[in-house]
């Protein structure tokens, strides 16, 4: 081969390699930074105190359970809204809508996914929360449920977009096979297309949940930010505070290197571990499905 060509090959390969390694490096650095700033919290505050149910950092109460429970209840609520709506919309776009409708809906949903979350929070404060307050006769409209509704709205486009791609990738032959057997459209969707796209649909759900759990701006604006342990069903309709909102609201005002500062980083670590858990769960589901497919097809 031409010598300059070999040289170019070499440089390009190395550049791509460097990009890949640096991406991994950055993630590792972030992780180490989190550990460095967050782990001291364990030494400074007793574990018992951390797992307390009171979060009053000014008075040295660093119980993070209310924050974790707040994040979880809102995410759960958001998932309960986003999953059926998201998958339903994806099925409609991919399987039922006529082509012209699909060509309008798909970009529209993706546009919705690009909506800044602060705008949604704004709408939440001005429209959703006053409406909920009068509708449900609550003392305040800034509740976990309000947060769930809006987060659900944020997660829906992610779920729709990924799930629709997965449904679209199901070979046409599967559907025709079912139709030719006299399956109705609904039977085809429910018993052939959705199961065939199962792993992609699960990924969509996990990504949607991941999006919801990491969301900060909207929840900070509409959930009332009261660090109260949320374990009962009624807490869905009272103010809560999430981990993300706590970090965002307090990080700017905290003294660098103080106990409070370390605890905030510790919360960040917990959040990181939770999203990591969700991601690992998602990829292991996909991996298992792939393995299974390989085993059957080999």
């Amino acid at each position, binding site marked *: 081969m031409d010598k300059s060509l070999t040289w170019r090959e070499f440089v390009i390969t190395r550049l791509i390699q460097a990009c890949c390694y640096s991406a991994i490096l950055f993630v590792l650095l972030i992780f180490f930074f989190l550990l460095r700033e967050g782990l001291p919290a364990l030494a400074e505050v007793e574990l018992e105190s951390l797992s307390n149910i009171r979060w009053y950092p000014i008075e040295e109460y660093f119980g993070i359970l209310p924050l974790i429970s707040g994040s979880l209840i809102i995410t759960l609520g958001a998932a309960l809204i986003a999953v059926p709506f998201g998958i339903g919309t994806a099925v409609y776009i991919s399987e039922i809508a006529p082509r012209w409708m699909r060509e309008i809906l798909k970009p529209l949903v993706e546009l919705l996914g690009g909506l800044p979350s602060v705008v949604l929070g704004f709408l939440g404060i001005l429209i959703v929360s006053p409406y909920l307050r009068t509708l449900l006769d609550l003392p305040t409209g800034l509740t976990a449920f309000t947060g769930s509704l809006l987060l659900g709205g944020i997660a829906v486009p992610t779920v729709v977009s990924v799930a629709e791609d997965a449904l679209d990738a199901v070979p046409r032959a599967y559907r025709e096979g079912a139709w030719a057997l006299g399956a109705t459209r609904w039977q085809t969707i429910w018993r052939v297309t959705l199961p065939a796209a199962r792993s992609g649909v699960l990924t969509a759900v996990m990504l949607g949940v991941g999006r919801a759990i990491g969301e900060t701006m909207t929840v900070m604006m509409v959930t009332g930010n009261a660090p109260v342990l949320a374990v009962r069903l009624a807490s869905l309709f009272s103010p809560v505070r999430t981990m993300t909102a706590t970090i965002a609201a307090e990080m700017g005002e905290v003294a660098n290197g103080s106990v409070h500062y370390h605890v905030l980083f510790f919360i960040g670590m917990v959040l990181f571990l939770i999203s990591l858990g969700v991601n690992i769960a998602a990829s292991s589901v996909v991996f298992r499905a792939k393995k299974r497919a390989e085993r*059957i097809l080999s």
Partner: protein
Amino acid sequence: MAANKVVIQDLTLQYSDGTESLRGVSMEIRRNAVTVLFGPAGGGKSTLLRCLNRLNDLTEIKASSGKVLIDGENVLDPKTDVIVLRRKVGMVFARPVVLPLSIRENIVYGLELAGEKRKSQLDQAMERSLKLAAIWDEVKDRLDDPAAALSGGQQQRVCLARVLALQPEIILLDEPTSGLDPISTGKVEAALQELKKEYTIVLVPHSVQQAARTADYAAFFLQGELIEYGEGKTMFTTPKQQRTEDYIMGRFG
């Protein structure tokens, strides 16, 4: 009982993307015989098949006219119940599409969709249709294995059995052996010769040789037009049209 199961009258159809089309096709398809539709690609054979069970409903169609009468009823009529029609007119595709289920589940799938729940009925139908598709002996000991683990030829016969389980009246086959080795192909063709005693069979073969081997009646299609239609024996020995002869002799296509 009329000798013609299907009567096609002046059927014209054009897809929106302008690919394959049909122009003024009229023909009759005989009961209890293998009717072969052959010709070069893009000639309208598959399109015609898909008109018989209305699978074209799901494709973008620009224009269509004409009639397809099955037992005297026009199935292109919008009022036709396509679900019932598709149970009556079964179809086997070029690529075997086994569902990601066990062999047993694949066979009884269509019946379950139709609402049959009794296990004895399902088992009976499964055994009967697997035997008819000439694959019972090969799979009877492993009915609960995934169907995707079978060889291509076996999968295709499972697909055939799946169609037979619904007890259709007409079976459409669109190049059912295009992906199969000669031995599997032979088994499928032999099964068809048995099946025609009970069913009306319409086959799009994947080669002229297969057309000649299997056809009781043969129709030659070229660019959406029916060029020649008649008994298989006559067509493949002494075709009337020059274009048919050219194609059979391999001078084009």
